[in-house]
Structures are given as structure tokens and as C-alpha cells.
């Protein structure tokens, strides 16, 4: 086995050979290709941007619904609750988007990796809270949607309670399913990510990486 300094000498030899061995595909570096391509972070920011537009449309539609039903508390209140949820989701999307856009990859590695891990942690926490809140706001959402889209009145205390209980029971169920099947969703990266977010695996990974970064930066360890 070689030591690191012997490896360094071999590496320098390898470096000299590399110059002749590799060719850069200049065609791929043409303006059309470069300007059309999006980095992973830009794709994420674009996805969040679409999400923000959708949530803004929901907030606006709910505002209009509340205005039309202002004198009917049994509709205005659930719509108000939904509106709070939609505004929170809109703010979360904008916050994530703004954070993602501020990341400058030309900064030192530890600084950028810390920012990325914090962004990942924030995104996972938002997903977890959105899913928990989503199971609760499901009932008011059904009331508002039935009224606004179909003109049907589904409102009754028993119905409301049944749906809240149903929604809450989905929390442990989705947690169990995510823990059990999250790792087996290899064919669908999106589903795998979502299930690992719910199960808390991705949050643990992000936190462990942040701890790893702190340890790496520390001079005593």
C-alpha cells in the first residue's frame, strides 16, 4: 500500500496523461445548450415557483368564497381556516424559493453544504407539517369544495367530526406505511422522497450531515 505522499506523485503523473486523454465536448457547451439547461437548484426553485402560483390562486379563490359567504359562518369559517393553511403554504413556498435562489455555489464547500442541508431540513419540515395540517383541513376543504364547485351542502357536525377523525387516523397510518415501504419505492424517486420525508428518515439524514459538517469544521475533532 502507498502512503499519501507517494500517491501524490502518482497522481501528478496521472494528471499529465489526462491532458491528452480527455477532450471536452465543445458542442455541448454551445450557448443553446448552456442557456437552456437548468441546475438541480433551479429546477427546485422552478417547481416551488409553480407551487407558489397554485397556492396564490387557492388563496385568491378562497378570499372570493369567503366574501361571497361572509354572512354564513358555517361556510365562511371553514374557508377562513383553509385560507390560513393556504397562506402558510404560499409563504413556505416563497421562503424556500428565496432561500434556494440565494445559494451561490461559488462559495466555500462547507458554507454551501450547510446552506443546502438547512434548506433540505426546512423543506422536509414544511412537507411534514403540511401533511399533518392537510389531514385536519381535509374536512373544511371538502365542505368548501362541495359548496363552491357542486353547490352541495355537506355540512353537519357528525360529518365534520367523522372526517376530522378519519383525517387524524391517516397520520399514524401514513407514518407506518412510509416507514415500512419508503425504502422500497426505488422506481418512483418522488414517492420515495415523500415517504422518507414523512417517516423522518430524510430529516435525520439532513441533521446528521449538519452534525458531520460541524465536526469537519471543528479543529479539535
Amino acid at each position, binding site marked *: *500500500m*502507498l*502512503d*499519501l*505522499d507517494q*500517491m*501524490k506523485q*502518482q*497522481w*501528478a503523473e*496521472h*494528471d499529465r496523461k*489526462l*491532458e491528452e*486523454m*480527455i*477532450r*471536452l*465536448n*465543445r*458542442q*455541448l*457547451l454551445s*450557448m443553446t445548450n*448552456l442557456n437552456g*439547461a*437548468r*441546475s*438541480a437548484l*433551479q429546477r427546485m426553485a422552478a417547481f416551488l415557483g409553480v407551487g407558489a402560483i397554485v397556492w396564490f390562486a387557492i388563496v385568491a379563490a378562497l378570499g372570493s368564497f369567503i366574501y361571497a359567504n361572509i354572512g354564513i359562518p358555517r361556510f365562511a369559517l371553514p374557508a377562513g381556516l383553509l385560507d390560513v393553511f393556504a397562506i402558510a403554504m404560499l409563504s413556505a413556498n416563497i421562503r424556500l424559493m428565496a432561500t434556494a435562489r440565494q445559494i*451561490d*455555489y*461559488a*462559495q*466555500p*464547500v*462547507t*458554507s*454551501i*453544504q450547510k446552506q*443546502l442541508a438547512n434548506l433540505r431540513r426546512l423543506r422536509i419540515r414544511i412537507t411534514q407539517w403540511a401533511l399533518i395540517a392537510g389531514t385536519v383541513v381535509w374536512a373544511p376543504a371538502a365542505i368548501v369544495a362541495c359548496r363552491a364547485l357542486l353547490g352541495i351542502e355537506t355540512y353537519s357536525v357528525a360529518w365534520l367530526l367523522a372526517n376530522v377523525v378519519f383525517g387524524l387516523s391517516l397520520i399514524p397510518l401514513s407514518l407506518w406505511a412510509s416507514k415500512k415501504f419508503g425504502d422500497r419505492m426505488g422506481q418512483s*424517486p418522488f414517492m*420515495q*422522497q415523500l415517504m*422518507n420525508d414523512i417517516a423522518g428518515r430524510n430529516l435525520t439524514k439532513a441533521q446528521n*450531515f449538519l452534525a*458531520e*459538517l460541524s465536526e*469537519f*469544521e*471543528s*479543529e479539535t475533532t
Partner: protein
Amino acid sequence: MTTPALQEKFQILVDEHKKILYKVCYSYCRNRDDREDLAQEIIVQLWRSFASFDGRCRFSTWMYRIALNVAISFYRRESTRTRHVLSDDEKVLNAIDETENRSAEMQALYEFIDGPEPLNKALILLYLDGNSYSEIADVVGITETNVATKISRLKQTMREEFRA
């Protein structure tokens, strides 16, 4: 500077430093298609950031920072990524998969770099590439003393492993 002029400058600089691209991709990806995906992601990020490159640091330092940041992120999300196979026209570095051109020693070197976790991997790569402690500190974002300590510890670990 106009966009075509900027692009011309970018192409020249990246071509001059293409070895950084090659070595980072090889150090962070074992799979050939993943290496190509990573090379493309690095190129895209380099171009996106190029307009803000002000020359205050060396181009190689700037390129290392971006390439390593993209590679570490890529490495960390690799397990949840959708893989796709690229045609030859889509490949950034035409010799990026020429493992057959590599000697057994080089293969062993890349295997050694493949071992540690992503942050130490960056440190080893920068050290083997002949960067000074100050340059490594600048790219990684830790103090020069810390770089020296970590390199010395890596050497020690290797010696102990060798003795064992």
C-alpha cells in the same frame, strides 16, 4: 462583455481546466452514466455562476468550489435520483469513462478516494492535486491549520492501516 464573448471565454477556461471536471466526477461517481450526469450538472452550474466570477480568486479555485459543491450534493441525493443513459453526443467529456486507459495504480488511487465520506474525499482530491493548504482551506472553507491537521491525520490512518 457580450454573451457570445463571455461564452467563448468560458469555453476556453473550462477547456483549460477540464482535468478538474474529470477528477471530481471520477472521485464522486463509480457509475459511468452518473459521471456523465454529474459532469453536465457541474458545467451547467459553472455557466450559471460564470457571470459573477470576478477574478478575485484563481479560476481553478472557483471551479473546484462549484464542482465539489455540485458533486457532494449529487452524491448525497444519488440514491433517490432517476438515472438515464446518455448518447455519445450528450457527453461532456469524451474520455470520461475510459477506465481501460488507467493503470492498476490509478485504479487503486481512485478506489482509495472512493472510500471516505464526501467532505474528506474533497480534501484528499485537493491534496493529491497539488494544492497548497491555503488553497485547500479556501476551497473547502476551513482554516489552514485544520487542513493540515486533517491531512496529517489521514496520513497517520493510512500508515496504521498499512501496518495492520
